[in-house]
């Protein structure tokens, strides 16, 4: 129990440390990967609390998600390497206030909530996986399906928006023969 509490604490501090690192660096890739390791540390907290499936899942999902975020940050920021010493923070006073209020709320919820009876023994890992499976295909199915369909819709919509409209006379950015000829004419 002591060892468990110790490791939960260590990984918790690591999560906070990496979380701070996200804003302390000017490099977009460092920032994204610091967020990844912060989330992976949260996954390790799950593992320390004997929630094996949730922990492993968290560690797995974050790797790809944060990497994909990294490439988007590199694409959209003007100084992705941070070699120009760009400052990412703004509205400092407001942010500090909002952060302090949010942290106080979270801590008071953790301290003053009625968490119910505390179980000394967690069910074994295989049983947890089984119970999670039943939970997801039973009570929580509607929630997960709704979220899944929403995300799928957003993905299809985003792809549809990104495809250029094919209309005669509209330049789609594609260098076909006809457009190429026109450009040559224009340059003459």
């Amino acid at each position, binding site marked *: 129990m002591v060892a468990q509490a110790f490791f939960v604490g260590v990984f918790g501090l690591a999560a906070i440390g990496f979380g701070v690192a996200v804003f302390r660096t000017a490099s977009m890739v460092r920032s994204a990967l610091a967020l990844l390791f912060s989330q992976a540390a949260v996954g390790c907290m799950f593992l320390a609390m004997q929630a*094996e499936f949730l922990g*492993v*899942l968290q560690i*797995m999902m974050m790797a790809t998600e944060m*990497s*994909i975020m990294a490439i988007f940050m590199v694409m959209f920021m003007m100084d992705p390497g941070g070699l120009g010493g760009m400052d990412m923070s703004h509205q400092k006073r407001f942010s500090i206030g909002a952060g302090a209020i949010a942290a106080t709320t979270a801590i008071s919820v953790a301290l003053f909530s009625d968490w119910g009876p505390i179980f000394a023994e967690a069910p074994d890992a295989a049983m947890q*996986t089984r119970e999670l499976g039943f939970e997801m295909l039973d009570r929580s199915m509607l929630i997960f399906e709704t979220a899944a369909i929403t995300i799928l819709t957003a993905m299809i919509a985003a792809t549809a928006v990104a495809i250029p409209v094919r209309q005669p006379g509209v330049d789609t950015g594609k260098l076909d023969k006809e457009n190429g000829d026109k450009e040559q004419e224009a340059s003459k």
Partner: protein
Amino acid sequence: MTVAIVLLTLLVGAWLLAVIEAWLTTGRLRPVAPLLAGLSHLGRESILARKPDRLFFETAPVLLLVVAVLGAAVLPLTPDLVIADLATGALFLNAVLAYVLVSLIMAGWGPNGAYAMIGGWRFLGQLIAYSMLIVMPITATAMRAESLLNSVIVESQAGLWNIVYQPLGFVLFFIAAMALAFRSPFDLPTAPGELAGGVDAEYTGVRLTVLRLARLVMLITLSAATTVFFLGGWQGPLLPPWAWSLIKTLAVAVSMLLVGYYLPRIREADLLGWCWKFGIPLALLNILIVGLLILVVP
């Protein structure tokens, strides 16, 4: 003790595969060559590029090696010879293999070089192509075993190996595993002859040795995973269980090298197109077929 045996197996396996790979490409069998090459790398200058992201540059090769070894840690060589037979073993393997991408992005971004960076981001595109083809076939094997324990997945193949029970899943997993290990024809992040080595380009000396070793260990881990999920793991007649595990793993690794030797490098766009237009529908079909078989055949 188990840890020492597994690590030694991985090291010997890496040496053996390096010998075989050189034999395939040069036609000469030189058993000492990989050791000499490794030693000579240790003596060479470790060049550091200008304005690198030092943290990523140094971490990437080590992370890749750690990921490959951690993946091997959950794969049983015999019923007793496994470092950790986790209750979420099959999922854990997916989780650690996701960090191959993180390592390659670090290796690509770290040295501050154009070729390396293109190689690193290319692997992100490659992941979008192969990752579902790693997860879905493993899901189908776990469905048959009704467990995520890798040892139970092996035991579930006692009557019939998964390569016969779900051949579609095997083919997809084999291809995706090669893409994950960035082996030819999927060696887009390194792409010798096109990207001048890609993520390898700026690495020299000790760091390059670690990177190459990690890549070989990764090939062994993925071959062992193929053995566990589809080839019945340690099961087989006459020989002891560990021998079967080693023979099958080596056979898978060599077949991956052979396939890579005879195929030309695939284009990034083609890989993505084929994986999403054919691979993923086939993987879903595989899950459907396995589900029906489980329900219909007692």
